[in-house]
């Protein structure tokens, strides 16, 4: 029984097909950025509503949040894929920039995956913001109100800037979760990094290179999470409020 069949020829196979993985990476990055953006745009107001909102609006935001957080992401992705009438944008042409050859992906799978990952991320980001907003002591809001700022102005100038800073660690966490979970768009055949890797090792020429391909794919994910985490660490330090220590 041969253990770990890592052969030179298999690495060469990865080497000659690297552009396929790069195309996958392109889609992964697109999906990650799109989902996080959607997550922020929906999650930030969501968090604010959970703290400051009243009545039915708040209940709805909370309820939807629980549903999104309680359902597996793969189920959400297939639900958004099969359950929503996406406009038929056909195949989306991507790449074409040297040295990445042009390619096309399924537009509806892209929309559904972005919606599922983005809205689920919004449900988590709203919790990050909610916690950050609540961690800012009431006194500052009172102080802002007592120099004559309206409630909205006080929240905007006093609570939001501090809450955003305190949310950075939560974002960091959320970023890595979304990045890794883009691989689950595999379920609807979206040609992101892991799917492209899967396609590579299931074709006849790639069948002996399975380990090499998946390790390469994993390494790319790892480098991405690692680099982004370091970058966000720097962002956090850059915007940190001096403490005098």
């Amino acid at each position, binding site marked *: *029984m041969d*253990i*770990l069949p890592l052969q030179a020829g298999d690495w060469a196979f990865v080497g000659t097909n690297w552009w396929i993985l790069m195309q996958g990476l392109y889609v992964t990055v697109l999906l990650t950025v799109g989902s996080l953006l959607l997550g922020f745009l929906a999650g930030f107001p969501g968090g604010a509503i959970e703290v400051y909102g009243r009545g039915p609006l708040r209940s709805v935001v*909370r309820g939807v*949040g*629980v*549903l999104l*957080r*309680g*359902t*597996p*992401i*793969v*189920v*959400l992705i*297939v*639900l958004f894929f*099969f*359950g929503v009438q996406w406009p038929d944008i056909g195949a989306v042409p991507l790449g074409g920039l040297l040295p990445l050859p042009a390619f096309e992906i399924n537009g509806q799978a892209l929309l559904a995956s972005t919606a599922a990952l983005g809205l689920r991320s919004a449900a*988590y980001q709203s*919790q*990050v913001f909610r*916690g950050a907003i609540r961690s800012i002591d009431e006194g500052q809001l009172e102080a802002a109100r007592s120099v004559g700022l309206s409630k909205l102005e006080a929240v905007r100038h006093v609570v939001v800037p501090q809450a955003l800073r305190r949310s950075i*660690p*939560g974002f*960091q*966490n*959320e970023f*890595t*979760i979304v990045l*890794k*979970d883009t*691989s*689950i768009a*595999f*379920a609807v055949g979206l040609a992101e990094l*892991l799917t492209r*890797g*899967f396609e590579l*090792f299931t074709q006849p020429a790639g069948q002996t290179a*399975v*380990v090499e391909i*998946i*390790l390469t*794919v*994993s390494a790319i*994910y*790892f480098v991405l*999470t*690692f680099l982004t985490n370091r970058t966000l660490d720097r962002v956090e330090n850059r915007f940190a409020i001096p403490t005098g220590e």
Partner: protein
Amino acid sequence: MTDRRGRGVDVGDLPGARRLVLVGVGVLFWGWLLARWLHDWVLAPDVNTSDREPFVPPARLEAVAEQLHDLAAGAGAAAGLLEWLAGGVEFAAFGVDSMPALAAGAWITVYLTVLSILLGLMIAIPLAVARTYGGPVLRWIALSYTELIRGTPLLAQLFVLYFGLPTTRYIREFHGVGEGFVPYAAIWVAVIGFTINSSAYQAEYIRSALQSVDPGQLVAARSVGLSRLEGIRYVVLPQGLRYAIPGWTNELVYLVKYSSLAAFITVPELFRAARNIGSDTFRVLDIYLVAALFYLALVLTLSVAMSRFEAAVAIPGVGSASERD
């Protein structure tokens, strides 16, 4: 205690009245699920999954839907509402029809989760202790392991184990795999994958919990004559593990949801069971909605149960149960 490196998977708190409703639904749901499992293995163990009958005959619901349709035909203004109602009952009939198959899938989901979290915990505790109290080499090894696992997608890890390495081949050589109550190879691959993945995350939760135990505690333990390891074992861990319960709840909920990825390495758990029904009946959207509700029932009851557990093992001043509002 908010863990900045956690997976952030808690479902959030629910207001009191809704919590009560949830407990009611939870009791009903688990009562049914346990009855179902008991019935399928003990009372009718030889019936194929696809031939099992639901407890509530779906034909009765279909008849109701039929009547509603008839009513709607002659109802004029209220027709829309009645049609909508009929649609709801039809959905319920379909859901009921698929319950035996989903219950069988849920059984795999549940034991995948339970096995993986327990086995993962057994790896996570030494990992966390190594990272907190170990020497430079031990710390570095533990750090590399957790960072590598946490930096790559779970699905990629499952693919490495299932498609990449000859894991299944080794497992099949064990006597009895796939016979009787012993699950077959793909399930074991999934258990191994989830265990490894979960151990890295649990180690992080436990590490940050250990760090929140006052260092004076270990000093005090040493001063009564305990060795360093004994001090960790008898003083630090019992406190630290209590601090880790919220993180551990997150992890449990996370595993319930992400065990669905085992579907892609052929494990017939809940999500794959739903997918199979979808491709048989072509009612893809309906079955995924049923599956979503099924997962929600598992996840929500679990998080309520865990917060009960946390309160039950709480010691005044240790852990976070008492600080919650």
